[in-house]
């Protein structure tokens, strides 16, 4: 499963970090980082993250 975050609309709320902490995180500089290719075992978490994003900036491919 491929994950893309549209950083042109992301406002860094970090709701994805709460919903799917194994996939999304903030690095020491405070930037959002995420795994771009994730095992399907984490699909429920990633979908919850995409759902919870207030700006709807997360896209999941296949």
């Amino acid at each position, binding site marked *: 499963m491929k994950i893309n975050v549209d950083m042109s609309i992301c406002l860094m709320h970090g*709701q994805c970090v709460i919903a799917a902490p194994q996939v999304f995180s903030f690095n020491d500089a405070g930037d959002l980082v995420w795994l771009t290719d994730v095992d399907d075992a984490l699909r429920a978490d990633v979908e919850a993250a995409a759902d919870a994003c207030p700006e709807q900036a997360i896209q999941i491919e296949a």
Partner: protein
Amino acid sequence: MTLTVVDDVPYLDVANPKFSIRSQEVKDARTRSWYARTTYGIAVLRYDEVQKLLRHPKLRQGSYLWPQHNGVEGKFARWWCDMLLCQEGDTHARLRRMANPAFSPKLIADLQPKFQALANRLIDQFIDRGECDFIADFTEPYATGVICDLLGLPFDRWRELADMAADMGLALGVTFKQDLPKIEAAIERLFQYAEEVVAERRANPTDDFVGMLVQANRDKAQLSDQELLDMIVLAIFGGIDTTRNQIGLAMEQFILHPAQWALLAEQPDLAKAAVEEVMRVRPTVTWVTRAATETFTFNDLEIAAGTTLHLYSQAAATDPALMPDAEVFDITAERKPHFGFGGGAHHCLGHFIARGDMTEALKLLAQRLKNPRFNGEVEWLPDSGNTGAIRMPIAFDRA
């Protein structure tokens, strides 16, 4: 930080109920400085600083200090400090993850026809009179009805729920202490109501939000008995009070800008943008609260650990330094994001629902009520904290 800088910094007497977050005093302070000192700590007045501090790593959600700022203890203060908004870290993440699915954007499409039916039913009840109290006749039953739908609560007790939510909402204004007896009575009744709902759902399980919480509560480590009740009280209170106020504030803006109302009636697709524009210039949540977890320096200002920062959502998003027409109410204008739903880890949980129900309400109201105007004195909450109208008599022409 030098003493000269301190002397130059504006001071705002925010705890005074007569203080207005939209006053010339606040605008002048915003021109002079990015922040002001206040009764509670620091008020942040400009867009860039609000945006940065909203998600600053040295700050946490600061509302847990609000009862303390007002010298208040009791049932409300206990609930307030323990519930989702005032929790941080693992406890916050556990509760937020649990609540998220019930407020998913995927639900909006299904809820839209319900929002429309409810709005139309309420408008039907007063349309022939050509006048109404927009709060008692529309925003209160509408905001309450939406929550009843969402939580699977019977609509016939809506008045009771709306009154409890309105009385509890007084806690988020600067007259918190003075209104405490009313607030405590309301929270007592709301907890009794939540207990009744839980008992009923334990007997008759459902798969909606409350049913899901009751299910999670079987494992007390996942959701304790107290957390279960706290969450239900939050959903009822948070959903009703804010939306009730925000739709009233929307009507005020459109009464003051009749051409915008006519435009919305002609182009219902503008309703979504109208909600955002109303929340930019006239948010019910006039400030978002943060507290410093450690001492740090921001824009050359040393902010001591424990300092409360109120981020002024309205002042920041209407700063003419940001864009020349920032103070103009225009539902067709391109705007930068507002702060009406807060931001960061505590971004409003119910914002998809709130945006959806307010969009449908404004769309239908604009089509059915022409030339709305004030028809008597509007009674307001203080113009700070969580604000809004208590009573708004309006007259209109039938479409």
